[in-house]
């Protein structure tokens, strides 16, 4: 699908904002300011942003996964939602009850992932199914992403198959970053390209260079368009490399240098920057100013979250139900 310059600018800015934010998260983690873990989408911004930017908040729904900071940003998640969740602010969407990437705002069409891989596929399917029943589907789509590792889960399989049977407008992006934690592709699946899975589900499949924003935007745009038009589930497999450890606790030393120096080892942000500049969609100066803006935005979002209170265990409502049953029965 031809991609317009505004879309690319938009997607690229999300990539940039995500990258700069995540760099900061990494520093905070290393400085001991974030407890638990930090999981970066470094190297995956192009495909993630292409998806997020192709969706319409308020109309579409989107279940981002581990490495979708760029997609979240493009979809319209406020940066402060991220810093608050990582820093445990009680003001964040998860109020300190859950952390890092386990966040969402289901009411804005963005459910909060659970850790169990593959589990969000059927949830997005359910959201679309409900919209159809309510008569509000009307050209909207639902999207989610998974990694190469998550394709081995039963949940992925059941969810995608169910979406296909129900002919739901689901766009699923498989970000094949060649590793699941430390496990390489050849210990994860035995086909050549995961896109070969698509036809078995009766789903349209696409394979794309995940380090190439232009290509990602075109392919994801096409997939989203077809889904909107009633073409049923679409599966995009993006090939790329995770340019960080699994989490910031991990140096990823198991990634062979041949992968790092190979084609997919290139940085999608650099590639995209060149593409934008060469096509005349943005100037280098403009990009620098975006960078500065983002850095400032990140500083603010971190500072604000840091000065906010953490949850207070003594004022916490320690119930897991919304229904209030008589106290004696709990």
């Amino acid at each position, binding site marked *: 699908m031809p991609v317009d310059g505004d879309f690319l600018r938009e997607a690229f800015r999300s990539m940039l904002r995500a990258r700069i934010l995540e760099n900061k998260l990494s520093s905070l983690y290393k400085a001991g300011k974030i407890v638990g873990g930090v999981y970066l989408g470094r190297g995956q911004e192009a495909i993630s942003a292409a998806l997020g930017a192709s969706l319409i908040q308020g109309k579409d729904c989107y279940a981002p996964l581990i490495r979708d900071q760029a997609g979240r940003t493009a979809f319209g998640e406020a940066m402060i939602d991220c810093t608050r969740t990582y820093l445990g602010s009680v003001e964040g*969407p*998860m*109020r300190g*009850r*859950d952390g890092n990437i*386990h966040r*969402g*705002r*289901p*009411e804005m069409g963005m*459910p*909060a992932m*659970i*850790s*169990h891989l593959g*589990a*969000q*596929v*059927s*949830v*997005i*399917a*359910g*959201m*679309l*199914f*409900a*919209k159809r*029943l*309510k008569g509000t589907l009307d050209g909207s789509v639902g999207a989610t992403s998974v990694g190469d590792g998550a394709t081995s889960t*039963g*949940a992925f399989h*059941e*969810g995608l*198959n*169910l979406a296909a*049977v129900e002919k739901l407008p689901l766009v699923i992006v498989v970000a094949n970053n060649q590793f699941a934690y430390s496990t390489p592709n050849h210990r994860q699946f035995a086909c050549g390209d995961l896109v070969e899975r698509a036809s078995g589900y009766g789903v349209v499949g696409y394979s794309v260079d995940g380090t190439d924003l232009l290509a990602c935007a075109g392919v994801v745009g096409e997939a989203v368009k077809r889904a909107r038009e009633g073409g049923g589930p679409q599966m995009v497999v993006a090939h790329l490399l995770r340019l960080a450890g699994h989490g910031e606790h991990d140096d990823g030393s198991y990634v062979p240098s041949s992968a790092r120096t190979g084609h997919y080892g290139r940085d999608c942000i650099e590639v995209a920057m060149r593409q934008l500049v060469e096509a005349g969609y943005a100037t280098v100066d403009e990009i620098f100013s975006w960078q500065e803006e983002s850095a400032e935005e990140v500083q603010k979002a971190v500072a604000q979250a840091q000065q906010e209170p953490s949850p207070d265990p003594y004022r916490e409502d320690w*119930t*897991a*139900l*919304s*229904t209030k*049953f*008589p106290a*004696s*029965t*709990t």
Partner: protein
Amino acid sequence: MSVTYIDAIREAQEKVLREDGRVFLYGQDIARFGGAFKATKGLAEEFPGRVFDCPISEDAMIGLAVGAAIEGMRPIIEMQFADFSSIAFNQIVNQAATHFYRTGMPVPIVVRLPSGGTPGSGPFHSQSMEGIYAQYPGLVVVTPATVSDAYHMLIESVKLDDPVLFFEHKFLYRWLKAKSINGDGLPIGQARIARPGKHATVVTYSAMVHEAVRAADRLQADGWEIEVVDLRSVKPLDLDTVLASVARTGRLLALGEAFPWGGVTAEVVAKVTEEGFHLLDAPPQRLNARDTPVPYHPKLWAAHRPTPESICEALRKLLSF
């Protein structure tokens, strides 16, 4: 004219489908076929586009329900047998159960679980999993023993904003009949005195309520008056009613059909001894199924789960202290 337990479940679903546009039914073989137990018979025809057959994908069924609930719907999911919910375990305990606590948005789904033993059903079509799910925060676990409760509690379950696991006992489906489905208006979370008495209290739920009443009837001949408390829901668990009964009788037998380690009966005994130790005139007792898978052969099955005989025996022991 009489109504069976399974009729009641069907009628309740018909009523909520009629009255609440947010309700839909999703499950294996539940549309035209009407379900393995006919709990949805005719509903697909009566409510076109609201009753769906689905693939054999229990994990995705619950995921779909959660997604639909996020969008404001009130799905009822039928597991073909409670035992197969083991496939949906993750989506139930980690996705559905945690949703409200994590996000502040409740997910009102009802999962219907045909459960409990029947002769010849064997290890994988007989399980009583209520004590498994009740361990997880965020779930309401309902276990109707009567025709009227099957009806009214299912309707109430759909109205609750939280995920409800609705354990239906397969043995009661066609065996249990009532003149009508009129109920006594008790809400979920409140237990019922199924049979009043004064010498000992049996706390139980689901099909075992009937076995307990039978045992109580037998002991009546010997002059014993046994009170039977029907918990109705195991989470929330109505400790007030249980304690009030134990206060009257001084003796407690916690009775269930599930495996003997932990579960509902352990929770009942632990709660009562924590809060009502001084009320007890004798050591509280438990009676459960045996600690093996549920056997296929009817003879083994009958000896695997509590029976009026074994309940009487446990009660006599309890009364002899």
